[in-house]
């Protein structure tokens, strides 16, 4: 098997420039593919981290409207609901108004109960619970601003919660890690927000409930919404996963656009590589004849052409994907505020590799078929 590699490799470099340019265009194509996939993950990656057993309850009309605090107890009482975490959007920024933060006010104990996958030390957790002005921050945003546990930082805000001033002083009590999730969040205490705000007192933005059994989700959602039907503040409940997915889709049919661009690129690459392979085979008609006289069967020659094509695409593709991986890692801190989840995930790399193989096979298919069908005698005469 590997004994043929020297022959195949030598064949690729027959026309050095042509091989170099084909490799480079494949590299560029897969670099683009990698970047697009990182962008796609940035938009939709959060859906993976969202859990099946969490229920999201918001105001029926729009999430922008809030709900009465009294709803909390009623939702907690619904059978099948384990924990309920009330949440209020704060938003805000730190030092630079143009770099908005994702600050959310929550009830700390309930929050940790509903999101058990959040990794944080016991010590930090308890410190947060007992400090009204305390916040926990995600490791990525902490790294970006150089925050450490114990820091006192001022957060600023545009929603006119306070009568005077818009600064909220908070203390960083913990840094958390959310594997595969968004590590740019900042969570403050609901009490701290509520006691200082001049409107919306006692109300919550939305509620996230953790259920005993994910299978109960549709039933419980219906039950909750029925409870508040025909009240001044009707609710809408659904799975958190669906909500996150819908939110990503709100930004647009970005997925469609990304796929379309990727497809255009792939298609062009197919033609470029296919043409290179076709040229390569056409030039070697007599050589293919010679191989067949030496005893290489039709099938053997076909394999040689396909593997040569694969070598080309795998080399270029692997280089392009590798470069994409490096680039996205380098770019990540710079785009973190806009796209917190910008990275090239493992499954996209795998998909890329599969595509290089498919590209190699597709580009080599017609030339390989031609090589297979070449009659020895004609081939020796020059095709």
């Amino acid at each position, binding site marked *: 098997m590997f004994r043929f590699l020297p022959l195949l490799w030598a064949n690729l470099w027959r*026309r050095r*420039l*042509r091989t170099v*340019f*084909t490799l*480079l*265009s494949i590299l*560029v*194509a897969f*670099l*683009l593919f990698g*970047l697009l996939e990182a*962008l796609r993950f940035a938009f939709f990656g959060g859906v993976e981290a969202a859990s099946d057993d969490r229920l999201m309850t918001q105001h*029926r*009309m*729009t*999430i*922008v*409207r809030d709900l009465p605090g009294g709803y909390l107890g009623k939702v907690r009482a619904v059978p099948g609901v384990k924990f309920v975490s009330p949440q209020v959007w704060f*938003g805000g920024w730190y030092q630079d*108004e143009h770099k*908005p933060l994702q600050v959310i006010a929550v009830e700390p104990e309930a929050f940790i109960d509903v999101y058990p996958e959040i990794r944080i030390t016991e010590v930090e957790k308890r410190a947060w619970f007992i400090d009204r002005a305390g916040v926990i921050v995600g490791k990525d945003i902490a790294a970006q601003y150089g925050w450490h546990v114990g820091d006192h930082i001022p957060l600023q805000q*545009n*929603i*006119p919660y306070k009568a005077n001033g*818009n600064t909220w002083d908070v203390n960083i009590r913990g840094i958390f890690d959310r594997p595969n999730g968004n590590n740019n969040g900042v969570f403050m205490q609901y009490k701290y927000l509520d006691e200082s705000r001049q409107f919306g007192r006692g109300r919550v933005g939305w509620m996230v409930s953790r259920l005993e059994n994910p299978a109960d989700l549709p039933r419980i959602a219906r039950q909750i919404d029925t409870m508040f039907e*025909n*009240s*001044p*503040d*009707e609710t*809408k409940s659904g799975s958190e996963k669906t*909500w996150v*997915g*819908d*939110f990503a*889709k*709100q*930004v*647009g*049919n970005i997925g469609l*656009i990304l796929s*379309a*661009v990727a497809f*255009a*690129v792939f*298609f*062009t*690459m197919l*033609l*470029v590589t296919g*043409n*290179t392979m*076709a*040229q390569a085979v056409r030039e070697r008609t007599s050589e293919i004849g010679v191989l067949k006289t030496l005893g290489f069967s039709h099938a053997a020659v076909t394999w040689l052409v396909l593997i040569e094509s694969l070598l080309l695409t795998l080399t270029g593709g692997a280089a392009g994907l590798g470069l994409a991986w490096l680039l996205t890692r380098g770019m990540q801190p710079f785009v973190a505020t*806009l796209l917190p989840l910008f990275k090239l995930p493992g499954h996209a790399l795998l998909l890329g590799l599969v595509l290089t193989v498919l590209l190699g096979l597709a580009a080599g298919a017609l030339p390989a078929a031609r090589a297979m069908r070449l009659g020895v005698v004609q081939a020796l005469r020059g095709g």
Partner: protein
Amino acid sequence: MASSFSQARLVTALNLRTLVTRWQSAAVTVVGIAGVMVVIVGVFSIYEGFRATLELSGAPDVMIILRGGSSDELQSGLALNAVKIVGDVPSVMRDADGPLVSGEVFSSVDLINKATGGMALVPLRGMGPQGPKLRSHLHFISGHMFTPGTNEIVVGQGAAHQFAGIEMGRELKLGANRWNVVGIFSDAGGLAESELWCDLTVLQGTLNYGTAVQSIRARLTSPEAFRAFKDTVTTDPRVNLSVVSERDYLANLSARLRGIIRSAGFAIAILMGLGAIFAALNTMYGAVAARTREIATLRALGFGAFPVVVSVLVEATMLGLIGALIGGAIGYMAFNGVQTSTLNMSSFSQVTFAFRVTGELLQWGLIYALVLALVGGVLPAIRAARLPIASGLREL
């Protein structure tokens, strides 16, 4: 020997005739460049469409007044007296019904996006009776304006196209009340077409906002009055307000998103361009290689190097031009006018817009494609010029 120029014409003509036999490689370059063109047109038509709706739709004589320090309507909050104070400023235009001023409340409604099937936050605006007069190109496609004081709603045509459940005559349940869609309007493709409008006081009641508003819109007597108006309003000690022209406001609103689209667009264009260059280089080098004996013969006969270079460059340019034209045509047909929507983070609601393939976009795309083709042709052209004649004649 004929002049360099007529030699060039001859060699080029010869070259183009042999192009037919090399059509497969030539096709690859054409497709490669066409592909780049289509993608560029597609991505930048998003940018242009967005820009048309947001940046270009603002009127220079309409002012948006928000709470001091706020940059968007969502996070602003004003008391009712602010509306009166603004209305009293002399540079505000007046008509039979009073000053052209409208206090407005901005919220949103969850509707289903017909294209994605998912939920979308659609802007819902409550406006005062003078509100419609502040929309410069308002025109009703069907139905009529909502009657003040009632639960009637009118829908922008962009929103009507994108989101489900807001057709003419439909009844909607928003909050605790039922509302009726009584009209569908257009506003020269501007941002208003993404919105649902209703009466200010009715919405205030539904949202429990009391008499507070979130923004005030005012039309001035002329765009030049902006300075004076702004100074008067911002220095008034009774209120804390900020003033921005509608044009600037809309531009700011979309700045981030436009920035993202633009950067992404350039990145994609550059990368695809690189790929196309390599494809073109391949074709052109192949072209030179295929014509080695022919070029060497011409040179042996006395043709200079310059005509050969010209012939290669002409071939490259021609292929690039064909690719660009094909790509541009496909891009225009596929994208121009396609309606879509996206989430504007600053207003936390949907903006509907249409892809827009402008003449300028096609022009720049064409230039870019030609540059790609030329870059792809330069190196091979130089190689063709420097081909050693003797070995070229021997080439099989």
